[in-house]
């Protein structure tokens, strides 16, 4: 009898359990319709060189006018160059060298940001009256005859334990070296001067940008005659022009009558200038040369301020011509020019000289704007301003 009862329980237990489980499944299904979230546009692969978007207010110090990161009307900062303060790839701490125009002259100054955005001596930094006024110190000024009274277009890099600062003067391209990035010793003579055999160089070489490639060879890109050339060096001091110059010329001119509705001519069909050399080895082992540059719609020589945008070009390998993207990597319609590039684990920052309209929309002055890539991602809140340059 007990055995039969047990058997009966066992036969019923299966169906009842199944029906109960079926009800549970149905109930859980009904309860499972929960809100969802989308995680779009993050962690996307990127070559790191844009497209860039201007920084927004939440990414800058309180009181700063986006997208400007370094602007003082009396100094008219422009032509930035950025170099990491340390070798930590995750650090956004950066030194920026740029041209200042105190009283109409042109000198090179240095500033400093812990987060890549809040620069020592910016106008917003000096709105804080709890500390003495911060001013970006001059690190290089014209004192050599070949410089012609002006030093411009700084390009900083770290090599051999020193900061090397290439710059342009009236007679060519020079270099200075420093152990602390503040006190520089110039090489007295320019390291690249005009060469009559380089017929495409219809103007004095300028706007240098230098990097050391993995094979130890130094490479310099420079601008001349509305195009970009390349030179190489074993030591950063003795330079030889590369074969095949220029490696980047203006885009071929397009007949406006051939353009369709809404189409515009190439943004860089007038000239290309201000190269920024940013080599990298991709994760799959290919050596890639990335170059940001200023593209001008009109050829140089006119009196009007030319329309411009920041473009990107590149090549695989250590030599040869560059190919370019048809669309600019950054454009703001504010005469942007002479960009600097700073890449760290968090992303890429672009510093661009452009018309600063933060004080007046109709009378802008030169200032340095900040932009970021990947454009789909947002930077964390800024840190405090650096307390030293």
């Amino acid at each position, binding site marked *: 009898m007990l055995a039969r009862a047990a058997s009966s329980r066992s036969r019923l237990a*299966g169906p009842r359990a199944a029906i109960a489980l*079926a009800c549970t499944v149905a109930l*859980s299904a009904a309860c499972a319709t929960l809100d969802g979230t989308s995680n779009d546009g993050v*962690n996307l692969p990127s070559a790191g060189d844009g497209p860039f978007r201007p920084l927004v207010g939440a990414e800058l110090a309180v009181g700063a006018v986006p997208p400007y990161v370094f602007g003082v009307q009396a100094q008219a900062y422009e032509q930035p160059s950025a170099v990491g303060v340390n070798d930590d790839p995750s650090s956004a701490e950066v030194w920026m060298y740029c041209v200042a125009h105190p009283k109409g002259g042109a000198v090179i100054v240095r500033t400093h940001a812990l987060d890549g955005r809040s620069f020592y001596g910016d106008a917003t930094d000096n709105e804080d009256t709890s500390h003495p006024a911060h001013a970006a110190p001059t690190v290089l000024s014209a004192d050599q005859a070949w410089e012609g009274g002006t030093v411009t277009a700084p390009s900083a890099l770290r090599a051999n334990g020193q900061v090397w600062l290439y710059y342009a003067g009236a007679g060519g391209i020079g270099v200075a070296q420093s152990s602390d990035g503040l006190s520089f010793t110039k090489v007295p003579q320019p390291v690249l001067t005009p060469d009559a055999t380089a017929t495409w160089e219809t103007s004095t070489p300028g706007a240098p940008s230098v990097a050391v490639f993995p094979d130890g060879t130094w490479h310099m890109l420079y601008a001349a005659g509305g195009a970009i050339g390349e030179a190489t060096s074993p030591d950063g001091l003795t330079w030889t022009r590369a074969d095949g110059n220029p490696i980047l010329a203006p885009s071929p001119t397009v007949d406006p009558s051939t353009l369709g509705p809404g189409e515009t001519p190439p943004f860089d069909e007038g000239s290309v200038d201000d190269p920024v050399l940013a080599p990298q080895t991709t*994760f799959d082992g290919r050596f*890639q040369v990335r170059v940001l540059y200023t593209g001008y719609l009109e050829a140089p020589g006119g009196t009007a301020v030319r329309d411009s945008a920041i473009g*990107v070009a590149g090549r695989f390998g250590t030599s040869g011509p560059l190919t370019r993207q048809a669309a600019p990597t950054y454009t703001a319609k504010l005469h942007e020019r002479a960009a600097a590039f700073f890449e760290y684990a968090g992303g890429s920052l672009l510093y661009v000289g452009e018309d600063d309209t933060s004080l007046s929309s109709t009378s802008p002055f030169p200032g340095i704007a900040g932009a970021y890539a990947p454009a*789909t991602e947002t930077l964390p809140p800024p840190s405090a301003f650096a307390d030293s340059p």
Partner: protein
Amino acid sequence: MRAAGRLLAALLPVAAACWAADARANPLDVFGFGSRGTAMGGAVSADVTDFSACYYNPAGLALAHGLEISVGYFRADQSLYMNGKNSGVDPVKGVVGGAVVPGKVFTLPFAFGVGFHIPDDWLTRVRALPQDQPRWELYDNRNQRLWFGVDLAISPFPWLQIGGGVTFMAATKATLDISGHVDLFGPTDSSLRHQVDADLTLIAYPSIGARIEATKDLSFALVYRGQFSMDLNVDANVQAGVGLGRAGDLTTLLLALQTDTVDAFLPQQVVGGISYKPTETLHTNFDLTWVNWSAYQPPVTRIMTQLNVPPPAGGWPAGIQPPTVPAPTVVLPIQIHDIVIPHLGVEWRAITQRTWEGFLRAGYEFQKSPIAAQTGPTNYVDRDRHSVSAGLGLRLPAPATLLPGDVRLDAHVQYSVLPTETTTKVDASDPVGDYTAGGHIWNVGMMATVGF
């Protein structure tokens, strides 16, 4: 006369299918429909009789023995990576289920079936991305959608079942009207009013199938699923005064914007299937699905703009550049080709007791990526996919007097791996550059079916 009646009856489901204009696009192609079919790698076109026949082969509905209601839930977590970073592709999850109602037309077996997949998060999701933005083309966005199918099936002869039906989906058309004042340098001082008029319209699209029982142990199936695409059309009209500060309007801006996006496109498919029962307790199935991916239309938004901004009296102020009309979108070819997907599935009735039966299931399917290597400007990311699956089933015949039919419980787990491969760009100035992509997907779910 009797034969003519059978023929007429056979044509009914076909006619029902042909009534619709286009065919289905759904998450079911990727993750399966119902636990039994998913556990068997989708190889059930010749061996399906429950609600999931609405997707796999409507003809199978005609073999149902009684009213059945099924409901369940599944969740597919997609761990897909680019350059080792999780792409954040949303999971696909939701309630699935359906019902089968058999009967007779004249003297012929007849069945009506409905099936549905109701996602948790979005009834439908349409998203247009720039062509160069990397995205998991076949796994992101397009699988976030409602699916609802209604099918009819009939068995004009004991050895032949024919079925067909329609599936419903929504398309979106919207108009956005904006008017007000735009301050060129003071966005916070701008005041705009907007009005949105949006319509969610139904699209119906067909599928038809046939099943032939060659012998008691051998069956064949042929299924056709048509082509489907979902359009998102948004028209925007902007009429606003444009000015500087509080100086009043300088001019009036008139902007007419028309966007047209084809999204969630799924190509037509043909499935051929075979089911063989070597023993009374073992089903071995094999399906081949041809997918006409070469007809794929990239989900790129085509924009047509008309802009009229007359210069103010005295011309534009210094430093102000009037806006210009962007050039029409140039859609780059995606380079995608047709594929054939093999599906393998087995089902073994491992335990047979007087009051219950237990089933073990397993399956495999391989989908070679139809998208060519993205070495150019576009980045429609995809990889080959191997899916292995397993499942358990429990059948309780007539467990209670209230339930004269079966109660069935089914569960599945499916693991898909997309082997990591490197995409190498031709152009060194490509803003995306080289990247690796790959990952895996876990898909688990349960179903409960009650027969009456």
